[in-house]
């Protein structure tokens, strides 16, 4: 901003009024001219109204009134514009001046207060010192006077006694009776001689010097000195952590001054708070010198609590440390497990790993449609998810991009890697941790192979969830009692079992051989293909003439229906009617070496 002063403002004002005057003059001149010739042109050189034959302007460029007026109007508005801008700048400067005025007033006021306070203190100290000394002096005086008085009394007594003796001696001396005189005189003479031989101590018992104590005004001097010296600052105040100001490796720390102290710089200290109480309790303290009242601390661990405090320093000294505040870095983003996510026409169940070794407060799931114009679709969020999975309602026939954040008191983490969900039909993968060890799954989790090789028993690791006899594996569905459809592609000679089973179906038995599973089974005999629809070990007797190569499985919880279809022909094969008491999961097994391929994300065909 240019440094204007009042003088330059006046100049601007003069310029403007000059122009006005000039115009007025011109107008005046114009009136005069009109008596002789009607002005119909404008000389751009002399910048006057004239008429088109004027001799004075023969070599000058003459403009017609219209264009001339236009041009001059433009020039005028340009100048006015410049002036308006200058006005704005002046106004800004004026308001800035006002602020400075107020601030300076405040600061001086503060200084005045400080000064008064200081001097009051000094005066107090002085008057105290005066009292003390006056008291001491008074005491001295009374002691001295007491002693003198004592001596005086002593003297008086001695004088009185001596005078009395002299009077008695004189009385005796006047005695005419010589015998009586000689009788009394000896004792009195003795006494007179005694008295007169005594050494009269005529010296003063005490010195007459004043005992002048040295005035110790050093503390007053110190106080006078410090009047012009700033006080050391008082302890700052740590601000509580601001929402969403932290990242997973940094914290934005803020604090404020307790009072109107002058501070040259701050020192910020921080230390990681460890959960493990058995460890060496104190982690290293880090520190940083900072000029502002805020600072970003980096290179921190995610999802961790840090203890922070700050001191303020000026030329006088360092303030006491502030109260310790606890800040938390946000967590690392979670990691979605795409193989564990399942979806249907109108819902999806998303599962993830926390991504943090320590627990977090909650998770937030965000999803948006990815089909069309990204700028048009809003992102929806599900907040306060307590565990590492979330069921979210979606619209059918759309593509979604879904991500998850972990949240703690520091704020939310970054978005996890997203997962694509399509609500065109039932989507799931084969669950590797339920697979019999002889099964291997493809990389995309949709094909299972039972290889024709004998794995030694030692290579087989079983767990509570893997199938141990039936070479089987489970899938998963959205936990809603709705309708689901999927297809399985098989070869003509594959001996398989496909269907559904309760999630706690016995891992030691064969699919369809118990009450907790229902399946279609294909057996190849030397003479023909045999099909069974097994539940609890029982099957109806059904002959099928065309071998299904693509089997459609339809599950309807509400209708209590599990039906099997030759999906290529849309031919219905069999329907189980059963009330499913719990959730069922798709199940697949191979009775002999072979392969099955799962097709998901398909809408149920219309015939179903």
């Amino acid at each position, binding site marked *: 901003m240019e440094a204007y002063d009042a003088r330059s403002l006046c100049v601007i004002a003069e310029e403007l009024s000059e122009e006005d005057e000039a115009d007025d003059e011109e107008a005046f001149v114009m009136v005069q001219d009109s008596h002789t010739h009607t002005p119909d042109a404008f000389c751009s050189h002399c910048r006057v109204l004239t008429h088109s034959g004027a001799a004075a302007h023969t070599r000058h460029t003459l403009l017609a009134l219209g264009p001339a007026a236009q041009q001059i109007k433009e020039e005028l508005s340009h100048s006015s514009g410049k002036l308006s801008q200058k006005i704005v700048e002046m106004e800004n400067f004026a308001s800035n001046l006002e602020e400075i005025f107020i601030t300076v007033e405040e600061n001086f006021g503060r200084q005045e207060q400080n000064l008064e306070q200081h001097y009051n203190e000094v005066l107090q100290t002085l008057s105290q010192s005066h009292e003390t000394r006056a008291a001491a002096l008074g005491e001295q005086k009374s002691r001295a006077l007491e002693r003198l008085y004592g001596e005086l009394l002593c003297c008086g007594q001695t004088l009185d006694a001596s005078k009395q003796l002299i009077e008695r001696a004189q009385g005796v001396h006047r005695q005419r009776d010589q015998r009586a005189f000689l009788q009394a005189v000896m004792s009195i003479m003795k006494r007179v001689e005694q008295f007169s031989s005594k050494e009269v101590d005529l010296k003063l018992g005490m010195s007459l010097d004043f005992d002048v104590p040295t005035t110790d005004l050093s503390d007053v001097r110190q106080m006078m000195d410090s009047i012009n010296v700033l006080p050391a600052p008082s302890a700052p105040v740590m601000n509580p952590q601001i929402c969403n100001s932290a990242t997973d490796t940094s914290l934005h720390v803020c604090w404020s001054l307790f009072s109107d102290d002058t501070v040259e710089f701050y020192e910020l200290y921080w230390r990681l708070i460890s959960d493990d109480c058995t460890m060496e309790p104190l982690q290293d303290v880090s520190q940083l010198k900072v000029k502002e009242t805020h600072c970003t601390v980096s290179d921190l661990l995610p999802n961790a609590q840090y203890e922070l405090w700050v001191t303020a320093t000026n030329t006088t000294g360092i303030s006491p440390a502030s109260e310790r505040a606890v800040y938390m870095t946000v967590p690392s983003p979670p990691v979605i497990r795409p193989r564990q996510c399942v979806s249907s026409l109108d819902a999806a169940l998303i599962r993830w790993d926390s991504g943090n070794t320590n627990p977090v407060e909650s998770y937030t799931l965000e999803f948006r449609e990815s089909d069309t114009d990204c700028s048009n679709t809003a992102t929806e969020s599900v907040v306060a998810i307590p565990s590492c999975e979330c069921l979210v309602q979606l619209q059918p026939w759309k593509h979604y991009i879904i991500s998850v954040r972990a949240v703690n008191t520091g704020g939310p983490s970054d978005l996890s890697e997203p997962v694509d969900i399509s609500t065109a039909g039932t989507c799931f993968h084969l669950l590797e941790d339920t697979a019999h060890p002889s099964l291997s799954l493809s990389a995309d989790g949709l094909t299972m192979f039972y290889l024709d090789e004998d794995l030694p028993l030692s290579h087989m690791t079983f767990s509570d969830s893997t199938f141990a006899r039936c070479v089987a594996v489970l899938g998963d569905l959205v936990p809603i009692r709705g309708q689901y459809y999927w297809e399985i592609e098989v070869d003509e000679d594959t001996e398989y079992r496909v269907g559904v089973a309760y999630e706690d179906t016995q891992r030691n038995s064969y699919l369809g051989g118990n009450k907790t599973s229902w399946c279609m089974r294909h057996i190849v005999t030397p003479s023909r293909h045999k099909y069974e629809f097994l539940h609890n070990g029982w099957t109806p*007797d059904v002959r*099928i003439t065309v071998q299904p190569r693509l089997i459609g499985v339809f599950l309807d919880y509400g209708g209590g229906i599990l039906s099997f279809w030759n999906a290529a022909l849309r031919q219905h094969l069999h329907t189980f009617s059963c009330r499913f008491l719990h959730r069922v999961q798709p199940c697949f097994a191979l009775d002999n070496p072979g392969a099955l391929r799962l097709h998901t994300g398909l809408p149920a065909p219309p015939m179903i």
Partner: protein
Amino acid sequence: MALTQVSSNKCSDGYQKVFEHDSSELKCKMKFAIYLPPKAESSKCPVFYWLSGLTCTEQNFITKAGSQQAASEHGIIIVAPDTSPRGCNIEGEEESWDFGTGAGFYVNATQEPWKTNYRMYSYVTEELPRLINSNFPADPEKMSISGHSMGGHGALICALKNPGKYKAVSAFAPICNPIQCAWGQKAFSGYLGSDKSTWELYDATVLAESYSGPELDILIDQGRDDQFLSSSQLLPDNLIAACSKKKIPVVFRLQQGYDHSYFFIFSFINDHIKHHAKYLNA
């Protein structure tokens, strides 16, 4: 062709009616039963033709099978004709229960004295549909056929001989291979004569072996305790083998404990109507 209503009863929100007419193919008065579902009051409906078995009339199916409920729900018209011409006074037609009256075998007879009247094949595949389409709110493009025992045989051969005409086909305990069983041999020799090549024109197993046309989807239910199964009248294995070879899709269900009676039909008629509805209502 004038239709006379013989009876009408409201049933499952629709109407079970019986009509009588003069048949041009059979040259006599014929009755048929027709069930009109509630939907028929406002729009055209597909038609399910039911062919009954030996000794039946148009009454057995409509009183014993319990089909009206499912027909009402799926909006399907069910037409159940009689099993043979009646009152033609042909000599010998009352002699047996498995030949002549009540045993038309759904063929067009070529032998005397049967050939004038015993033209059940044409009646079922041509005259009756024309009649139904012009007198009732029937969708002429949506027809399907089913039946029991002899009627099962009739349904299968009508579908196999008229590729594309019937949108769906199913059968209960059908006579699958008549030229190999006693019933068929008796009937065909009477109606068609001794030339066995003419018999093959009306044998479902033979027709399946040479079928070409739009893909079929055949549902067959067979009671396991059916006496006629065990007495080799029905021979479903032959049909299954032929269909397996020709890749004609069939689902054949052997139903434990069930016999040949209408109780068996009653038990599974809903499955069949649903099977037909899948194609008729598509």
